[in-house]
């Protein structure tokens, strides 16, 4: 089993994402509009001993990675867990331009596109070699993390779960092998369907991968249901799990949330915290229950 950091600071709070309330999301978006507030939170986390950060490749992530590169000495032992891509960038592009147009825009200006002489509609000629498009898209998303240390690279859940439903077996296999080969990192998957994904990855013959999914006692963002997750955690697992959404956006008191995760035998969580006090409290609870 792959060893994952026990405490990974997530980034939803920095980007105005809250899975329980748009109003709370808005408050966070305003509070962390200033990049300095985000950097301050990362410094606080690091000083408390949290050295692992999950960072989605959204529009602010490039600036955050620049900051980590420019302040290397202040973040010894820093480990990133990139998650790619930022889904709403693509959702909006696809809504505006269709799937083919969105891929063209995402890849436009990339050297690979220019090298291949791909312009305009000729991208569709590449359709027969979709795995090449896939690795080009991965490269686009991974560019911002260059020269930083990362352990696992997670495929964002909207894409993971879409591909899982589509049963695009070769895409899972290609993603895993490319992440290992090119980035020497562990392939990871965010998902809202942990038991189903784990079973599917096994059926694809994928041995080395990690999964990050919601784990909370109310079953929020856990499909098909909380009972299936608990059964899965009791069984013999092939993939290391990082728990996310453990507070269910704030619906579960922190103590109950961390205790529940510990009871499932999970030793790694990604959590959102907007202040030093919240981080400290979570560290203490993890010490107590996990």
């Amino acid at each position, binding site marked *: 089993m792959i060893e994952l950091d026990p405490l990974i600071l997530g980034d939803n709070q920095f980007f105005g994402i809250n899975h329980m309330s*748009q109003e709370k999301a808005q408050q966070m978006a305003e509070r962390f509009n200033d990049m300095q507030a985000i950097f301050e939170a990362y410094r606080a986390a690091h000083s408390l001993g949290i050295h692992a950060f999950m960072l989605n490749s959204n529009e602010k992530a490039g600036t955050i990675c620049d900051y980590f590169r420019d302040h290397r000495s202040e973040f010894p032992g820093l480990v990133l867990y990139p998650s790619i891509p930022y889904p709403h960038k693509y959702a909006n592009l696809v*809504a505006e331009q269709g799937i083919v147009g969105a891929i063209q825009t995402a890849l436009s200006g990339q050297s690979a596109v220019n090298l291949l002489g791909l312009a305009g509609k000729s991208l569709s000629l590449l359709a027969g070699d*979709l795995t090449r498009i896939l690795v080009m898209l991965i490269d686009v998303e991974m560019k911002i993390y260059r020269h930083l240390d990362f352990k696992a690279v997670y495929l964002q859940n*909207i894409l993971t779960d879409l591909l899982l439903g589509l049963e695009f077996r070769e895409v899972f296999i290609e993603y895993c092998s490319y992440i290992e080969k090119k980035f020497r990192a562990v392939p990871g998957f965010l998902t809202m369907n942990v038991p189903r994904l784990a079973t599917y990855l096994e059926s694809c013959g994928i041995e080395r991968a990690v999964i990050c999914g919601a784990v909370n006692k109310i079953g929020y963002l856990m499909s098909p249901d909380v009972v299936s997750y608990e059964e899965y955690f009791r069984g013999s697992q092939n993939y290391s799990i990082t728990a996310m959404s453990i507070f269910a956006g704030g619906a579960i008191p922190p103590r109950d949330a961390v205790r529940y995760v510990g009871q499932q035998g999970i030793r790694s969580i990604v959590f959102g915290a907007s202040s030093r006090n919240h981080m400290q409290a979570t560290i203490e609870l993890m010490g107590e229950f996990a």
Partner: protein
Amino acid sequence: MDLKAVLMPSAKNGEPRKILNAAIIGAGRMGITHLAILGAHPAVKVVAIADDSPMMTRALRKFRPDLRLFDDFARMLESVQLDLVLIATPPHLHAAMIDAALDARLSVFVEKPFTIGAADALRLTARSRAVNGAFQVGYVNRFNDIFMTVKKLLDQKLLGRLFSFRSDMFGATVTRVSSGSGWRGSHQTGGGCLYEFGSHAIDLMVYLLGRPERVQGVVFTPVYSAGVEDIVRVNVIYSDGLAGSLTANWSDQSYRKPTNKIEILGEHGKILADQYELKIYLNRAVDPYVKGWNTAYITNCFTPVPFYVRGNEFTRQIFHFADSVLDPTQPNLSGFSGAAVTQEVIDMVFADADGGKQ
């Protein structure tokens, strides 16, 4: 009616009765989403897809060799034995495809907006009554946990007589000057903010409040688009003293993702809701709600779905459709007749808009 009891019997009743053969027309964003979701339904097998984009068909041929692929939907309907079809093409193509599906006596799920113009919507609704099957339009908000809760509360007359409302939708879909190409850039093909976003805001209003009497004071505002509106504002008047406003804006970059918001004021209080959160203000306590403000989050009132792709409501609407095909006697929560009313309101908005429909 307890909405949640109606939903997803297949998830509870163990073994399904039969396996339904399904086809999807249009393998764009929504068609692909539906394909992913249907793969998890125990009683449905997607056997064929029709799409005329070489890129999508080549992708499907490579990754899903089990599917039969067609570049022409009519040929697919002729060649494949089907029970149901999902239509997720640009809206101006819907009507002819639904007609062909009804000719073949298939159940139909069609993406929103239902049609271009209410005449086709009403005609197809009438035609569908002669076919034994399920007929649903993809107004996904009708399957959102929060909006379903609001519907239940309004049906229980929690607010008493209603006076005033807002139904709004905001998002960041069009945020630059676009070339105007593609079906979203023209009303003739079902593009523009009114069809794309406004239809959701209007349908949510129709779902919760019923059919309005008239609309007035429509304003279309272009921001980035050349041929269509990016913002639409409408005043909506009901016959019983209820009036409200509707705003749809697909060019608002402060929204990370598309968001519907509603506000409904009645004699006993007010409801504020979006896809995640419900606030109820009551002038008096009504068990289990207290006098004053009550807040419920999605985490208080969600029901899980068997397989999650883009949100519980997307799975729930598709599973509801499949379950309605298995048992057409069950009421469909987003049937053709309701969507035809939404289409009539869209027509009213176009008729009132400056310059009329293009």
